[in-house]
């Protein structure tokens, strides 16, 4: 289970962006979180990905309450969550070749020897051809770079996947291909998914259920309020 329990989070304690948000993801479940621009849903995604310490509330991952965040998070928790951001350009090191972008989580976790085989496997899964793997980010399109970022998120076989507006910058065909790659991975591994976005049709098609920002349909006592958009 991935449990967000009455999370309050933001960048200024006096005016949190997210207040008392609760959401429970069962293993293998896919949940879409829908909300308008600037409502705080990306902040929530960062909390779920252990990248942002909430002001109050708890994140419980498979029974373990997360107490330390970002690089201080314990490795076994950190590698159980994979994350894909909206802007591939900003989330890939411009100096690395795509093969190294994808292999970085393996290297960072002392599994360098697995890298070659795993990168080839991942590249195939996300639809990257071998010639693209030797290029740097400025030499590929947004769609190709986002494919590499998805491969990177899957490199350590996370049990949970957080996709924050993964396809917002992409054309329809590339978006459908990436969603297909995520779903193939989930079918093979039973990973859970939290997909954050503003496209009702896309999330409705992609996920088992969708939660609207502002609605309290999460089955918890928490209230979802939205700082900037009422």
């Amino acid at each position: 289970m991935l449990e967000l329990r009455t999370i309050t989070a933001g960048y200024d304690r006096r005016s949190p962006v997210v207040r008392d948000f609760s959401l429970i993801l069962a293993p293998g479940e896919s949940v879409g979180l829908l909300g308008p621009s600037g409502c705080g849903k990306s902040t929530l995604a960062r909390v779920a990905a252990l990248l942002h310490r909430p002001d109050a509330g708890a994140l419980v991952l498979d029974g373990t309450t997360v107490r330390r965040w970002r690089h201080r998070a314990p490795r076994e928790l950190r590698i159980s969550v994979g994350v894909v951001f909206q802007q591939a350009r900003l989330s890939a090191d411009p100096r690395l070749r795509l093969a190294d972008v994808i292999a970085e989580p393996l290297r960072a976790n002392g599994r360098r020897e697995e890298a070659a085989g795993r990168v080839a496997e991942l590249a195939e899964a996300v639809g990257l051809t071998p010639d693209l793997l030797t290029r740097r980010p400025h030499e590929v399109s947004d769609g190709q770079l986002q494919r590499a970022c998805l491969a990177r998120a899957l490199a350590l076989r996370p049990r949970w996947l957080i996709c924050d507006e993964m396809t917002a910058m992409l054309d329809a065909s590339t978006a459908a291909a990436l969603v297909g790659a995520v779903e193939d991975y989930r079918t093979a591994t039973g990973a859970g998914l939290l997909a954050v976005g503003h496209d009702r049709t896309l999330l409705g098609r992609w996920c088992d259920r969708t939660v609207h920002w502002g609605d309290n349909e999460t089955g918890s006592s928490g209230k979802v309020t939205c700082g900037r958009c009422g």
Partner: protein
Amino acid sequence: MTRRSPVLSVRGLSVRFLMPGGRRVAAVTDARFEVAAGECLALIGESGCGKSVLAGALLGLLPANAQTAGHAHLGDLDLLTADERTLARTVRGRLVGLVPQSPAAHLTPVRTVRSQLAETVAALTGVRGRAALRSAGEAAAARAAFPADHLDRHPHQLSGGLAQRAATALALVGDAPLLLADEPTTGLDRDLVDRTVDELRRHVDAPDGAGGAGRALLMITHDLAAAERIADRIAVMYAGRIVELTDASTFFGSPGPRHPYSRGLLRALPERDFSPIPGMPPELGDLPEGCAFAARCDRATGACAALPQMTDRVACHHPYPHPYPAEGSHA
């Protein structure tokens, strides 16, 4: 719609980038289209297919290693052969208004919207004097529905939608007959996309000072929903070539587009089949001799080894026939 004389007429526009080692990248090849006053042409296609390069070519904003060929007539002026002085003094802002991809990056971060509007008004119009500039700036903001009480804010204090309106206001100052919008809706949520394209449409339809015919709008986008909402005609670009040019109602409605790539793009929408086109677009530096889409196309045959010519608004050896049975209608 009655055919008006085109504001922009592009003939055989090609752009080649010369790369180190003598490589040549064919970013745009033989593009041919027209945009009339009061009309919106949406240029759609995958990222990296050459759409933005085409826009850059029209404004003379390509890097030094680019070579252009063909013609792009805006009135009597050929944008492709015009020198930098002409482009800077008579074209940019005055004949072509650019609505940028990322307004937050387009605006100057350290100055207020008011001061940027006043600077643009002073540079593009004959208005002089502090008070006159101030009121002209406010009028320019009002035209793009930018709220007057936000004029003294800096770009980082604006939401995405308001930043987009500020950028649109700047693009409208010079009363240019042609607006060029390069991915104006990227990263906005659906409501903001709808509002942004509706506003752009208003500037196409409602001429304020442009003599009654309205403006011409060339919108470059990968957002099919935005294109459907705003466009009169759709040009589909694949691997640097326009492969289909058709009416928006035909494209999105029934009978639907005729090129297999256009059909694939529509099928990929989550409200339709949500199935991607197999494979990936070819490298622009290493295009095949024949049809660039053949490798991904389920209709490809031996004939596709030869380059298809644009006939009857589609460049394909095996286009879907007209009329097509009505299956493309959507909710």
